[in-house]
């Protein structure tokens, strides 16, 4: 089976090129296995990977125009056509399929992704009702692979100012948490025309998320909370 791989080494290449590899595929093979086989043949080929089971979020790549985790994408999904693998779009390419995720992590940090308490921290457990805990489902599962933010045109245009779907999903994860006591502070930090309101509900993030999370819905919840607080 033929795989076309994006190649670019800034130390050597003037511009990127696509390189074709024929790899014999086996039943149950994932795209990560194909990339490992290519790496075995050509040691200069670079891509990120780690756990191999969709947990670490390292091997986000763009496959035939769609962001995916290579380790949980079966090759059999692409039996009919050629497979074109590129780096995550909109991010500066460090080498081949490795991109610079600095903006992405910077935006994640910007939403203070940890519990903030004004009351003293309880000595033992910080209890929640089952309903309060259930509000966090669909939020905590994010593995920071970057498939969502790097598929978002608004994030391509303003990666330094727009928080992006991943950071906004994380922001809502803490706004929705009954144990967090910094709602006003968090909403104030989302002030301005760029941080939240560059989202135009394009929903590429929802389509791309390998964990089937819904950042667009989380952003809607943030806007609704702002509305609730303003009236």
């Amino acid at each position, binding site marked *: 089976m033929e795989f076309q791989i994006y190649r670019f080494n800034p130390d050597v290449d003037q511009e990127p090129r696509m390189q074709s590899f024929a790899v014999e595929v086996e039943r149950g093979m994932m795209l990560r296995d194909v990339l490992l086989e290519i790496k075995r043949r050509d040691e200069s080929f670079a891509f990120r990977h780690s756990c191999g089971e969709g947990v670490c979020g390292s091997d986000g790549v763009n496959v035939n125009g769609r962001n995916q985790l290579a380790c949980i994408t079966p090759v059999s999904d692409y039996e009919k056509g050629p497979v074109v693998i590129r780096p995550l779009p909109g991010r500066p390419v460090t080498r081949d399929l490795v991109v610079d995720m600095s903006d992405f992590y910077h935006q994640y940090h910007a939403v203070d992704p940890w519990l903030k308490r004004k009351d003293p921290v309880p000595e033992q457990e910080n209890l929640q009702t089952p309903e309060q805990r259930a509000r966090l489902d669909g939020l905590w599962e994010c593995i920071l692979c970057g498939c969502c933010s790097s598929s978002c045109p*608004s994030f391509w*245009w*303003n990666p330094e100012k727009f928080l992006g779907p991943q950071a906004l999903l994380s922001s809502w994860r803490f706004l929705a948490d009954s144990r967090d006591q910094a709602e*006003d502070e968090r*909403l*104030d930090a*989302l*002030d*301005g*025309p*760029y*941080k*939240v*309101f*560059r989202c*135009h509900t394009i929903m590429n993030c929802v389509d791309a998320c390998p964990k089937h999370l819904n950042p667009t819905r989380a952003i809607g919840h943030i*806007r609704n909370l*702002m*509305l609730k*607080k*303003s009236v």
Partner: protein
Amino acid sequence: MSRHLSGFRAWMWQRASAVYLAGFCIYALARLITVPPVDHQALKSWVGNPGMWLATALFFLFLLLHAWIGVRDVILDYIKSAGLRLGMLAAVFVFVLICGLWVLSILMGVL
């Protein structure tokens, strides 16, 4: 705590104005179809009615506000250079202002 969010306020006004614009368009079209004005004078007197005049003035106010926020969003998305962005925002603002004054002069003529 400040709730004067430039992003939030713009977003809220864009949606609120959209609701008014849709409602006004439906009403005006329904009225023009069901009771079509026989001549220009009849149309003028319909718009010149104080209630309708106020509703029409609000329609254009919200239309210009809606357009300003929409174009502002496009500029914020695409224009990276701060100077060019400021220049384009100013140009669009002046254009919207001129349109507003023009609409106002027309509406004052109807009264």
